[in-house]
């Protein structure tokens, strides 16, 4: 009798667990490029400026119930950069800045995702700009409304770590070293998979 109760309990627990994972086994993987943005903030002579990448592609799959399978890959078209300054847009694809001819894309590939509790996560990955790859860590907030999910996050890079701005532009008094990159990725869950 006692063992029966234990068995019953186990079964109940197991089915409960299964139920839980069934409910949240919603994989978000349909990126909505038109609603997603990759922007950056920087300072020039103390003046805050906003820029963005107009062209980029994202592949992403994220299951809140199974973080180990989470994956993200972002590729930005360097020539599509909008620096917030008409002068800057022409100069910035040049050799001293992004050298868009030699390095037409910049990219991010995730290496891991861990939860920070609630809807907060920490993504780690490799960021490649101008042929140079460095590890980055970015706090991310994921908000889902039904089958529509939004990733919001950002991180700061030092531009000189990637040789963004060479020669006279290594001067940090004019264009500051810190660049805050922000991403807003809208991704829907595959329909019918609940």
């Amino acid at each position: 009798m006692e063992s029966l109760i234990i068995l019953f309990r186990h079964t109940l627990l197991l089915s409960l667990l299964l139920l839980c994972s069934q409910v949240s086994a919603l994989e978000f993987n349909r990126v909505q490029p038109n609603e997603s943005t990759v922007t950056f903030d920087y300072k020039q002579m103390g003046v805050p400026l906003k820029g963005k990448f107009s062209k980029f592609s994202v592949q992403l799959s994220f299951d809140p119930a199974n973080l180990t399978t989470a994956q993200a890959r972002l590729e930005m078209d360097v020539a599509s950069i909008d620096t917030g300054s008409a002068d800057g847009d022409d100069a910035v694809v040049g050799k001293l800045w992004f050298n868009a001819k030699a390095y037409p894309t910049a990219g991010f590939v995730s290496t891991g995702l861990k939860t920070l509790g609630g809807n907060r996560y920490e993504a780690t990955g490799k960021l490649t700009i101008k042929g140079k790859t460095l590890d980055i860590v970015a706090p991310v907030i994921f908000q889902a409304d039904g089958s529509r999910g939004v990733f919001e996050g950002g991180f700061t890079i030092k531009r000189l770590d990637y040789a963004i701005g060479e020669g006279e532009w290594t001067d940090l008094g004019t264009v500051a070293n810190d660049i805050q990159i922000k991403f807003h990725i809208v991704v829907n869950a595959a329909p019918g998979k609940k």
Partner: protein
Amino acid sequence: MVERYNNTAIALHWLIAMLVFAAFPLGVYMHDLPLSPTKLQLFSYHKWIGVTVFVLAVVRVVWRATHTPPALPDSISRLQQIGSHIVHGLLYVLLFAVPISGWLMSSAKGFKTVWFGVLPLPDLVGKDKALGTLLTGVHLSLNYMLLLLVVLHIAALIKHRFIDHDDVLTRMLPKWNRS
């Protein structure tokens, strides 16, 4: 014995004159430089000077509103006195209009003006390419007017000093420079 402007007014006049004489050629020189750190610096210095002129112009108008400037000598004809008031009035207007047009133009082009790289001024207009081009024209035109008026201002002082031999200039000279 000539009645002079007081020290505050004299200091404000010459300080603003110096700043305008720095900002004007800087603006002419910098505007079509190729992009470089120097260009970014010069643009910032130009804007910082402009904001400073604006602030000093406010102080100056407050001074002017609370003080009576020394009267012009009677030797100057009524017509010339009216002409002088008009030129001075327009100069005051431009000490405001030129910096304000530059500030708005900067905002329209997407660059916040940050005084000395520390104090951000609000953007009264948003980023707007067409408006930026328009305000560039306005800023330029106002500066040509300023140039014209400053030339008139200096021509008048030369005339008073070397043709009329009156004391008009002395009123605006510091005491230690009295001739």
